[in-house]
């Protein structure tokens, strides 16, 4: 067998945009071979259709209550069994928390190599070659897997392009049964607490981040307004998180999240190396800081030197006028 498989992750019955980006790459890697989407969960017909519209020729679907939430054991048992039986050339997923666990775990089951969090990927015969940022993005490393059997990789969000969805595309859907019954699974998800609204940081095309310069939890108010006007996600430096002004889930950087938006606005953030680790792959960086010597200006494309409490509201107003 050959072909490229993509595990499609979902939230609220919708595929993650990073999974659709993985399908876009799969389409390019597969050439004339088929692209197969793996859709596991409960009531996932919509996700299967979306995968076909975004480039899958076939879907392998498992619809079962034991798969309703992503769990390590039942997901990997199923994935590894399918891969062992059908021997796809490449298996891809978005490099989300779950994507990383599943690809690495299944690779262990079938004794395969896995390349994690890659930003470029090419398939040349039996060689899968990846470029990936290491040490907080300070250097890049080229890794290869040379093997005729299955090869796994996880892809950094926003590093690859999804195809335009095409509602006229068709594909086959094959149903499979889970491998593990509920009593063979050691974990039970007791409750799930969703983040309150907002745009997910790792998927966002615009990120507006603030740091110690905002001076307190209230200092985030003008920043949040700017993020809202831009439909962007709200980020923060570790200094702001450690001060308790904003929850950890917003932290960008070496010990927080890695983002690669089209536009990153850093407000009252000095630009320490550990912060840069999480945002240096942004396409355009704008810095607002009262200190003209702040390191962030070395990375930024545009800068405004001044007091954020004057600049940010003015910027929000200017965007509101121009974008309407």
């Amino acid at each position, binding site marked *: 067998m050959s072909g490229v498989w993509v595990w499609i992750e979902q939230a609220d019955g919708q595929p993650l945009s990073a999974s659709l980006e993985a399908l876009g790459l799969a389409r390019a890697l597969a050439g004339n071979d088929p692209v197969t989407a793996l859709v596991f969960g409960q009531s996932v017909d919509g996700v299967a259709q979306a995968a076909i519209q975004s480039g899958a020729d076939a879907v392998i679907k498992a619809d079962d209550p034991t798969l309703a939430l992503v769990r390590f054991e039942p997901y990997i048992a199923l994935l590894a069994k399918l891969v062992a039986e059908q021997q796809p050339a490449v298996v891809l997923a978005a490099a989300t928390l779950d994507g990383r666990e599943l*690809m690495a775990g299944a690779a262990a089951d079938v004794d395969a190599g896995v390349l994690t969090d890659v930003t470029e990927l090419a398939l040349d015969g039996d060689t899968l070659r990846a470029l990936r940022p290491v040490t907080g993005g300070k250097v890049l490393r*080229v890794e290869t897997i040379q093997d005729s059997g299955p090869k796994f990789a996880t892809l950094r969000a926003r590093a690859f392009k999804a195809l335009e969805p095409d509602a006229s595309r068709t594909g086959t859907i094959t149903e499979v049964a889970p491998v593990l019954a509920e009593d063979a699974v*050691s974990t039970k998800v007791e409750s799930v607490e969703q983040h309150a609204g907002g745009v997910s940081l790792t998927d966002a095309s615009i990120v507006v981040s603030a740091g110690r310069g905002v001076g307190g939890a209230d200092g985030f108010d003008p920043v949040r307004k700017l993020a809202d006007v831009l439909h962007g996600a709200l980020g923060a430096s570790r200094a702001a998180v450690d001060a308790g002004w904003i929850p950890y889930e917003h932290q960008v950087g070496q*010990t927080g999240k890695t983002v690669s938006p089209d536009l990153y606005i850093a407000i009252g953030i000095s630009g320490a190396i550990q912060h840069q680790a999480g945002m240096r792959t942004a396409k355009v960086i704008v810095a607002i800081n009262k200190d003209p010597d702040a390191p962030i200006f070395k990375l930024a494309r545009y800068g*405004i030197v001044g007091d954020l409490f004057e600049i940010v509201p003015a910027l929000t107003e200017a965007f509101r006028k*121009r974008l309407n």
Partner: protein
Amino acid sequence: MHVVVVTKNTPDTEATITVDANGGVNWGDKMVVNPWDEYSITEAVLLKGAHNVKTTVVTVGTEQHAEALKHGLAIGIDQAIRIWDPALEGDDSLVYARAVTAAIKKLGDVSLIIFGKEFSDSASDAHIYQVARLLGWTMLGFVAKIDAVDFAGGTIRVQRLTEQGTQTVSSKLPAVISVVKDINEPKYPTFIGIRKAAKADIPVWSAADLGVDLGSGKVKVERYQELPKRVGQVELIEGATAQDKAGALVDKLIEEKVL
């Protein structure tokens, strides 16, 4: 009952990392304990304080990684073990996981293995999930809090971060967990701890000692590359008032189709 932490040394985050003409890398001279492992090692020490468990810190690596082990001993871990074998050269996660798995089996009575979220140098976490899989244990990744653990009863309940929020998950032990920054305030070595750690005898286990064939890795590191240089310098937006500056910036971004 036994809690194991797996760690290594990584370059100091401030280190200047350089790439040579052959695609080799120089990590800089200062190495520190992997930043994520400050949390995992601390968590093991906290569990030892609250429960009657033995703690061990393990590294897979050359002599230079002994520093990470000493950090663990200095903050209160009971014993350290270093695993090294030439078969571990390279950076394949599955070979690494086979070594850790064999060490866990040799230790015998392990209920919980704690990893920091990832290794900051290779920026990889694959080995963590592979250890869980090779042992046939479950994995609780990205744990922000251990709500409850009952080593005798063999259960644990944690809060883990997901892409969309937080989950409360209960599980049977033994298990592998990885922890994120929210979990604790890292402990730092004391003077007495450092002295004790300096004197500790750290055994080195080879593949033969572990009785395991580590195999060869499928992932090969081909070369390193510098980052593409950012072209151009920052353009500072000037203007008489905040409104002028803001307007000028928005014009630029729209002109350049950033928005």
